[in-house]
Structure formats: C-alpha cells, structure tokens
C-alpha cells in the first residue's frame, strides 16, 4: 500500500518537473545566467565595451553604501511604489466592480479605461509632457478653472515625481482592472444575489464577499504591481531623464544610467543585486502576511 503511494508520489514529482522543464530551459538561458553573470560582474571592475575585467571584491557594494544619489533614488522608488501601487489597484478594483455587469455601454467603458495600456510609452510620455506644461497645459488650465493654484509639475523637483505617479495611475489602472475583471467573472453570482436579498449594502458586499472571493487575484495584482513599479523606466526616460535635481531618478533608470550611459557594468550589477535582495525580502514579507489570508475557491 505505502509502496504504491510512494510510486504515485514519484510519478507526480516526475510529471511536475517535466511540466516545468520548458519554462526552466528558457529561464536558465535568459534570466538565471544573466543573474549569475551579474553577481560575478558586481565583484569586478567591468567597462561596457571592454572585454577585460578586473577583480574588485566588495568595492562596488561599499561604493553603493556611500553613494548619496543611490539613497535618494531608493527613496524616490519607494515613494513611487507606495503611492502608485495602492492608488492604481484601488482605482482598478472600483472600476472592475462597477464594470462587472451586463449593462449596455460597458464594452465602451472597458475600452476607455484600458486603452492607455496600449499607447506606446514613448508617445504617452510625450503627450503627458504637453498635458503638464506649466504655461499652457490643460491640467494647469483645469486647476485654474477650479480656483486652485497652478503648478510647475515636471519643472519642479517637488512635483515631478507625483506628476509621474498620476500619469501611471492613468496608464495602469486599466491593466489591473482587466485582470480583476477576469477574476470577478469567476465569482458565483448566486452569492451576491443572496446577500442582496438579505439587504446587505453594496459596500459590505464588496468588503465581505467580493474581495475575499477574488483574493488570489488581488494578491497576484499587488505582487505584480509592486514588482512592476520597481521596473518603471520608460516615463522617466522619455519625460524627465531623472531630473530636475534627480527628483525622478528611480532604481531601474539609475541602473540603466550606470550600466549603459556610464559604461560602469560592475556598479550597475551591484545595484541590480541589491535591488533583487531588497525585493526578495519584500516579497517574502508580503507572502507571509497577505499570502496566508488568500482564500482559494478550489481548495478547502
């Protein structure tokens, strides 16, 4: 009997590895190998364009600790993540719930909120440079119309990063909305109907039924949103190049600057590895706290 069990377990294990194999082959070649190389590079003086590398030991990491700009960039990145992720996901959740119905016109709404995801970042960045123009930009005109003070947005080191956050809510809410919408469709509708008949308010239904039911997807969206927010690069690159006064310089842009503009691959690798360790820690924390509270419909 137990031998049978062992045999089934072994069969299941072999099947699992076989199913993972295709992914692992590609990941090994194009993700793990670069990471291994990056660890190796980070211990060396590596100049982009020069095949020779020189051993440095921990010097790149020590440099990082004393790099004033690195700490500023880390702060900017944290600010961006802590504002853009909760705001876009909250907006996405409300949009998804509002659009999860069979009413007429919903298809148009869905397209209206999703299309920003499709605009190439080069073009989207340029359009927002125009929208944010202090002198004649529509956003400042609207602020004046509402009786609010005008802002210098991208020209002001205090407002440039918030400006990019606002733009990213426009750009990414639709993206999270689509994923959440897919999850909402899997929530059995009788649950809602029943609660509605019991006179439970829409807000309570959202908190006590909808959110627990889609918690696996919400969990996914929070993790992916956080990881993606660390990768923000395009808008900084197109709109501000990290300025003014480094106020919009974020980690991926800083890594790009060091590796490709300054040719300092060793230091860029050290930055990337530091980021990886940081993110791994963060994800560990999220999965230990949020992950435990996720309720999977298919599992008892």
């Amino acid at each position, binding site marked *: 009997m137990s031998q049978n069990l062992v045999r089934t377990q072994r069969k299941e294990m072999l099947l699992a590895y076989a199913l993972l194999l295709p992914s692992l082959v590609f990941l090994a070649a194009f993700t793990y190998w670069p990471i291994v190389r990056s660890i190796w590079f980070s211990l060396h*003086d590596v*100049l*982009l*364009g*020069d*095949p*020779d590398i*020189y051993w440095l030991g921990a010097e790149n990491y020590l440099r990082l600790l004393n790099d004033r*700009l690195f700490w500023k960039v880390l702060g900017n990145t944290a600010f961006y993540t802590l504002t853009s992720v909760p705001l876009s996901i909250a907006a996405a959740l409300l949009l998804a719930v509002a659009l999860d119905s069979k009413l007429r016109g919903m298809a148009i709404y869905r397209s209206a909120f999703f299309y920003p995801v499709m605009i190439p970042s080069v073009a989207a960045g*340029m359009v927002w*440079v*125009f929208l*944010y*123009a*202090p*002198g*004649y930009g529509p956003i400042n005109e609207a602020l*004046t119309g509402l009786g609010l*003070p*005008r802002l*210098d947005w*991208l*020209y*002001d*080191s205090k407002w440039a990063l918030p400006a990019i956050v606002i733009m990213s809510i426009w750009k990414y809410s639709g993206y999270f909305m689509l994923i959440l919408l897919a999850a909402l469709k899997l929530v059995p509708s009788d649950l809602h109907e029943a609660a509605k008949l019991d006179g439970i308010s829409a807000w309570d239904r959202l908190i006590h039924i909808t959110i627990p039911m889609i918690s696996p997807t919400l969990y996914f969206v929070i993790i992916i949103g956080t990881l993606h927010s660390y990768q923000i690069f395009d808008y900084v690159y197109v*709109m*501000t*190049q*990290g*300025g*003014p*006064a*480094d106020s919009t310089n974020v980690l991926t842009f800083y890594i790009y*600057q060091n590796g*490709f*503009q*300054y*040719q300092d691959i060793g230091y860029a690798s050290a930055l990337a590895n530091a980021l990886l360790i940081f993110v791994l820690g963060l994800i560990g924390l999220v999965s230990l706290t949020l992950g435990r509270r996720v309720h999977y419909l298919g599992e008892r």
Partner: protein
Amino acid sequence: MPHVLMPAHAAETVKLQFMYPVGVSGDINTIISGMIDEFNATHDGIVVEAIYAGSYDNTEQKVITSLGVGEPPSLWLPINSSLQTFLGLDALEDITEQAKSDDIYDDFIGGFLGTAISNDRLYGLSFQPSTPVLYYNKDAFAQAGIPEAPETWDQLFETAKALTVRDGDELKRWGLIIGGGWHDWMFEGYCRQNGLVPWEQDKVLWDRPESVEALAFWKTMVDAGCMAPASTWQGSANDFMAGSTAMLYHSTGSLTNLRTSSPFEVGVAFMPKRKTWGASQGGGPIMIAKNQSDAQKEAAYTFARWMTNTENQAAWSRATGYLAVRKSSWEMPEMQEYLVEVPQAKVAMEQSAYSGAFLQVPAYSKAREVLKSAIDRTLAGEVEVEAALASATDEVNREIARVMRRQQRG
C-alpha cells in the same frame, strides 16, 4: 571604372555598417537612406548598410555593446563629447595622415574639425555640428518695444525681466527658458562667454570663479522670476512655440522645426556674451572603427569623405538646419540663396566661429548628469552656488581619475 573589370571587383565587395542617430526629424532617416543609396550606386566595390540606432545615447550604447563583443560597425555618428570614451576603448582609427594629404584640414571650418581632434590627432570627420543659440519671439519683442535681441548678459537679464508677464501671482510668460536636459551644454557656453573652457582632457573646472559667476548669474535670473528654474528638452521647445516663454536657448538643430512650427516670427541671435562670445559644439563627427580590415578602413574613409564633401554638406545643411562643415559648401550658390531665404541660419554659422568642443573628458556622461543635478539643485534653492559646483567638480574629477586608472590597466 571600365565595365570589363566589374566581375573581378564585385568579388571583393567591401561591406560597411554605419550606425547613426536621428536627431532632428524623421525625414532625416529618408535623407540619409537616400544619400547612402546614391553612394552605393556610384561606388563599385563598396556597400554601405545604414543602421538607425535611436538617439545619440542609444547610438553610443549600441556601438559600445558591439565593441564589447569585438564586432563594431565600420563607422558611426556619435556626439562629439564621446571622443575620449571611444579613445579610452581604443576603438578609433587615426585618420590624421589621410586627412592631411586630402583637403580636410584646409576646407573644414576649424571649430568643427577641432571637435574630433585629441592630442593633435584627428579621429573623425565632423558631419552634423550644432551649437545652442538664442531663439526669440519677434512678436513679443515688438509688443514690448524691444528692437534688438540682447547682446550681453546684463541686457539679457533686463530683456528677460521686461518680457516676463504675470497676472497677479500667476505667471503668464517667462522671459527666458534654457532648454532642460541639455542645460549643462548651455552652461558650458556661459563659462566660455566668461572666458573659461571649463574642462581639460583629464578634469573639469567648474569650481573656477568664471563658472561660479555664470551659475550665480542664472540664479539671479531665476530668483528675479524671469527665468524658469528647470525645464525639459521637449517641453521647452513647446513652451516657446506656445508663447510661454519669450526667449529660449536651444540647439541650432531645432531651427527648422521652431521656425516652421511657431505661429509668430522667430528671431535667432548669438548667445549673449560677457567677456566674449562663446558656445560649445553639439552634434557629431563620423568616426571609423580601428578593429577592421585595411580594405574596410579605406572604404570607410571613402564613405566618410563622401558624406562630408562640398555638395553633400550643402544639401544636408539645407535639408536639416545643421551647419555645413566645409567653407566651400557655404560658397556654393545654393547656400548663398539659402542664407538669403533663412537669414537665421547665418547667425548660427557666424556664432560657430566662437565655439569649441563640448566636455570631451573621459566619463563625460556621468559628468553631464552630475553637473545638471548640481545646477538644478542650485536653482531650486537647495544648495549654494559655490558649494554645488565645488562638490560636483570634486565628484566628477574623482570619477575621471577612476576611469583613467582603469584605462591604464587595460
């Protein structure tokens, strides 16, 4: 070449790759492709493949990445500031002798030729030079009763104050915007106008009194509320076209776009002087790779020479707004007509007599970023002028030393 010889030569066809950025407008891509088709049609035995490589930055990165794997393109067109970067990688073919036995040293305008010279050796043929100039809104000047563009820093300050328009607290129009993202380039112009080239081959000199004075002047204008403390490169050009600023420092490369897209008459003037006129060269030379066969080097020189010949430079200049590099190009009747039609181009041309290479130090990219950040923080009031420039100078010089130490090991 006699037709009978063709088959033999065809067997020895030399293939060249040429990587170039597109800096002014998409049409440049078509113009460059057209030039290359013409070259290929008229030169047996050489086939050039033109590779669009993005912006100046992207182009440099693409070339350097291919250098790292030992397969550089035959030629590329980077920004002139990258000269020391490529020399540090031992990537450039020295073309001094060929150029001297040719007419390059006689016919190229000195300031342009100089952007590809290091230690008296020539490493490229200047192809599309540009400098910053002062663009001004002639309608706004007329309304304010100002007849002429300012010629000195003091006049610039007065003019900017006079042209700034406020409605209560609300700013309607700035007097002056210095194109952000490249404001370090303009700043070097200010240093030159104040009598200092703020770098040497192995260090930067931003902590000298001349530089400090230049930044202090910017700070005065910002504090007086007549100059924007920061901007972006795209945004500042838009601001000018939309009438949000009366004056703008931007590249001569923008001339055609600003002239044709602004709903008012655009004036172009020298950047105002202090002790002297002065500007730094932007734009770049065509460089030739060292790591390739002699036949390729020879063909590459032929191609670079052809791209910068009198007729091609004249045509290129008229099509793009970049300045022609040859004296003989400017003497052609077409160019004389062009100058009558677009007198603004002449200003840019004349200013280039007072210009020199831009920040040709090792680690120039990092140097640029550090300087831009220091300028931004000063103008935002976060640091004092002197302290900002002193620490930026210190940081960059340490980085240059680090890079040079590394190059000596290699």
